[in-house]
């Protein structure tokens, strides 16, 4: 029996952990420093290539514009986009905040609705059969047609924009959650029931935590939709926001400012997208570690 107790997984790299260090730890041996280096390496490995490609495209664009002498109303040079954009940085920043507000409020609303629907469906087969077709149908509504109507119905305020954002983002979250809840299979359900769990405990102890990885995957997909949805809703009509800014600048043939707003949108989307990873690691650190351990072995 003693031989079993002392069995611990072999350290990933030989020689990196001294016996003395291992003896002082109560848990499994610490990961050697070499691992950290590869992780940082893979971070730059995934960040560097897109940066290089984007930089390359910008250079080609800049050179192309100055060689062909194309008019800036048609295609401004990237340098011009940056210079003109920076000149109006205050204005663009104000619009960005409006868009961010619409995005976040709309997305929060969407999240609440999606969670309620998904939990209700998880608990009731009748609701699933009744609601799913409606939810799918909601996704076939052309947003181009519905967004202007929303403004007619609800005015130029926040409400129609929140609704548009929610409409384009709630569905992936609902589907991600439902699929996530069902990751807990029959055997797991049997285990919990054998312990005396009813449906609610089964949900809180297993179905909810098992759904978290799928939830975050869905979150990532829909947060990018949320930004696009917000901008589209503003484009149709708003008092402020990147959408209405793009619309007015387009009408004034200020292609450079439209593109500056596009660049800001991209940065905004990517930031929110990356933020989901941060939140995921804070909320479900186990998922990240588990995936990594599986990949390593």
């Amino acid at each position, binding site marked *: 029996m003693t031989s079993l*107790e002392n*069995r611990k997984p072999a350290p990933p790299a030989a020689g990196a952990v001294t016996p003395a260090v291992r003896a002082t730890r*109560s848990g499994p041996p610490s990961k050697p420093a070499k691992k950290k280096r590869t992780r940082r390496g893979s971070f730059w490995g995934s960040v560097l290539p897109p940066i290089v490609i984007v930089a390359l495209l910008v250079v080609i664009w800049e050179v192309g514009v100055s060689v062909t002498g194309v008019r800036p109303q048609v295609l401004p040079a990237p340098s011009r986009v940056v210079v003109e954009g920076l000149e109006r940085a205050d204005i663009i920043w104000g619009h960005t905040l409006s868009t961010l507000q619409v995005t976040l409020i709309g997305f929060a609303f969407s999240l609440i609705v999606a969670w309620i629907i998904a939990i209700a469906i998880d608990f009731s087969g009748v609701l699933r059969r009744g609601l799913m077709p409606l939810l799918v149908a909601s996704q076939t509504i052309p947003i181009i047609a519905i967004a202007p109507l929303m403004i007619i119905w609800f005015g130029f305020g926040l409400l129609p924009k929140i609704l548009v954002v929610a409409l384009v983002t709630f569905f992936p979250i609902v589907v991600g959650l439902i699929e996530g809840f069902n990751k807990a299979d029959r*055997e797991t359900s049997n285990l919990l029931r054998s*312990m*005396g769990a009813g449906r609610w405990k089964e949900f809180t102890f297993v179905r909810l935590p098992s759904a978290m990885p799928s939830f975050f995957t869905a979150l990532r997909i829909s947060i990018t939709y949320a930004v696009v949805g917000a901008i589209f809703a503003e484009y149709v009509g708003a008092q402020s926001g990147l959408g209405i800014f793009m619309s007015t600048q387009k009408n004034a043939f200020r292609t450079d400012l439209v593109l500056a707003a596009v660049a800001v949108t991209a940065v905004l989307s990517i930031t929110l997208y990356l933020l989901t990873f941060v939140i995921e690691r804070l909320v479900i650190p*186990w998922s990240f570690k*588990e995936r990594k351990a599986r990949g390593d072995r």
Partner: protein
Amino acid sequence: MSTPKIQLVGLQKEFDLGGGESRHVVDDVSFSVQPGEFVAVIGPSGCGKSTMFNIIAGLELPDAGEVRVDGQNAVGQREHFAYMPQKDLLFPWRTIVENGALGLEVQGMPKKKALERSKQFFHTFGLAGYENSHPYELSGGMRQRAALLRTVVQGREILLLDEPFGALDSLTRIEMQNWLQGVWSEYSWTAVMITHDIREAVYLSDRVIVLTARPASVRLELEIELPRPRELSLVTSPEFVAYEEQLIEVLHEESRKAFAQQNGAHS
């Protein structure tokens, strides 16, 4: 003889496959388990062992027949049994000590107390030092011990183990059997264990029950009268080998039937 801990009387189970078809899985299964007895159940794969377990554990209802615990009807009752499923089903979001405490928490014990109770078993289960590890950090054998710990911690009267070592490589499995044998002689739980390993069945149990091909019924009951505690060297003794041979013969006959059944169904 004292009242049996468990009595199965004429259990029947048929599954509705839809489209008017059904599958008869359990047919008139009857046997008893004495208090403190370790019974191994073997049978061809797909014969209905897990289904029988689900019925005993109160997770499925039998179409006919009865499950009795201490002589009382216990059909559909779950509180007597601690159930260890085929897969370890350790939750990746829980540490090992938290996984161990799962059953107690589900039953409403305050988390702190449940964790303490769970911790007490770590030494016996060869998991000391791994309380705060996560399942992915453990080897297959350790995970299985953690799953067994989670089962035992609940302190229920009867353990139902569904192929607890089925997923392990043969060396680890032998190590685990040896270990379980040792722990057993200390605790003497009442237990029923499904296995497809004849050697494991003889080595660990007081009695082996062989089930027929589907629909499962009891084909043979064999008392294993080998002294305890059992040493690994026992495996090569003539008595042990004689038990094995007896079981191999019957089991293979049933396996051939099950095989023919499957091929018949596919052609």
